[in-house]
């Protein structure tokens, strides 16, 4: 008796499943929608990181938008010019380079516990945005790196880590230029550089030199020595802060070694691991 009842239960559910399955298979054939071949090819060509840097929900969504037309072909920052070329080839359009130079972000601050002055002790949530909500951070300098690593957690490829000095550093070899860290950084100390940049001025403070000296040993004090020592190097001091114009091809070595606070550092992967 029990066996009969069990077999009823099994047979009814199994029968229902088979019936519905067959019905769905039939409906799928009847209602099949042909997918655009180009969209599938584009999905293959795109990196598949689904980071959303192009402004769409993911690689598949961007591929569908390209097929639909009226979007630029080089929005994929991860793939850069190579992928843009492939995309253009699939769409049968000649690729014209626009602004597709590869860029990587870097932390423009080298101030840590041993070099910077702190205004108060923070023991809240380990999150830069939360800390920034309190008086713009616990450093006296309000434009520096807060060091709680929000960018490290948001990075989809683990290109950001604490280096040997305990400061946040972007590894440009791993970085896919998705820009999520630039968006999440509350102080804006994470800024874009050309991939080929040899040096960067690792400071973001626009305070006067005398004030920077008081709260940070490695800040830019706008002394203009870099401008004088490497006139061809593209150094330019504006708003009490030195910045490098990377279009200038001249030698920068002189200016870098002469910097009294040593805040011009190499954007080098190997020495910062």
């Amino acid at each position, binding site marked *: 008796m029990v066996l009969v*009842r069990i077999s009823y*239960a099994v047979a*009814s559910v199994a029968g229902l*499943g088979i019936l519905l399955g067959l*019905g769905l298979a039939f409906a799928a054939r009847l209602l099949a929608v042909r997918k655009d071949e180009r969209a599938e090819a584009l999905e293959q060509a795109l990196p598949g990181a689904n980071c959303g840097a192009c402004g769409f929900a993911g690689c598949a969504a961007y591929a569908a938008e390209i097929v639909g037309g009226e979007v630029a072909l080089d929005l994929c920052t991860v793939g850069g010019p190579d992928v843009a070329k492939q995309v253009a080839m699939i769409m049968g359009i000649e690729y014209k380079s626009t602004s597709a130079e590869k860029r990587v972000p870097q932390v423009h601050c080298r101030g840590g516990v041993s070099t910077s002055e702190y205004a108060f002790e923070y023991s809240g949530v380990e999150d830069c945005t939360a800390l920034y909500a309190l008086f713009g951070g616990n450093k006296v300098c309000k434009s520096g790196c807060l060091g709680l690593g929000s960018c490290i957690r948001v990075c989809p490829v683990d290109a950001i880590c604490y280096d040997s000095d305990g400061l946040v550093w972007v590894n440009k070899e791993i970085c896919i230029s998705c820009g999520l860290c630039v968006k999440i950084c509350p102080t804006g100390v994470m800024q874009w550089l050309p991939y080929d940049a040899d040096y960067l001025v690792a400071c973001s403070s626009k305070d006067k030199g005398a004030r920077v000296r008081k709260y940070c040993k490695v800040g830019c004090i706008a002394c203009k020595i870099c401008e004088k020592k490497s006139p061809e190097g593209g150094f330019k001091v504006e708003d009490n802060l030195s910045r490098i114009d990377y279009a200038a091809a001249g030698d920068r070595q002189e200016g870098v070694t002469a910097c009294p606070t040593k805040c011009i550092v190499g954007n080098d992967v190997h020495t910062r691991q």
Partner: protein
Amino acid sequence: MSYIGIIITFVFINNFILTQFLGLCPFIGVSRKTDSAVGMGFAVIFVMSMASLATWAVYRLILVPLNIEYLQTISFILIIAALVQLVEMVILKISPPLYKALGIYLPLITTNCAVLGIALIAVRSEYNAMESFVAGIAAGFGFLLAIVVMSAIRERLDKEWVPKPFRGVPIAFITAGLMALAFMAFDKALLKNLLG
């Protein structure tokens, strides 16, 4: 119970979203724009009415005669899942923009507790085939009503200044709570007064 009574019960008094709090996921997820809210509402009406009819048939014609009513949940889910797959295919064929607007929430109707809820409630209330079907449609209309009103409010909220921590989903949930309070005004007394 008369059909009018069933309709009033499921649209207003026992509104699935605002009184029974079933199916909140698509209610919050797809209520950002009125267009997609209307599409979602009609998809839910279709799934609910078909599901309540199909589950009635399976319950009365297979489960009860074989004395295996305890299988109702699993067989109902099976039917609902298949139905939703069918609706998905039909929408993709007929209106790709609507398919895109509904996004992930369309497959989520599969596991939507509101659809399973109407099937189980219809069985428990011992409705006949027609009553189950009407109850399904009415419950779907209740969902449509709630989601369209919600989307209209949210479209206006987008233009208003809202404190930053409340922007987006939080203010939507607060709105839903206020709407649920308003729906408490509909109770069983309404049925008595209207139908005697």
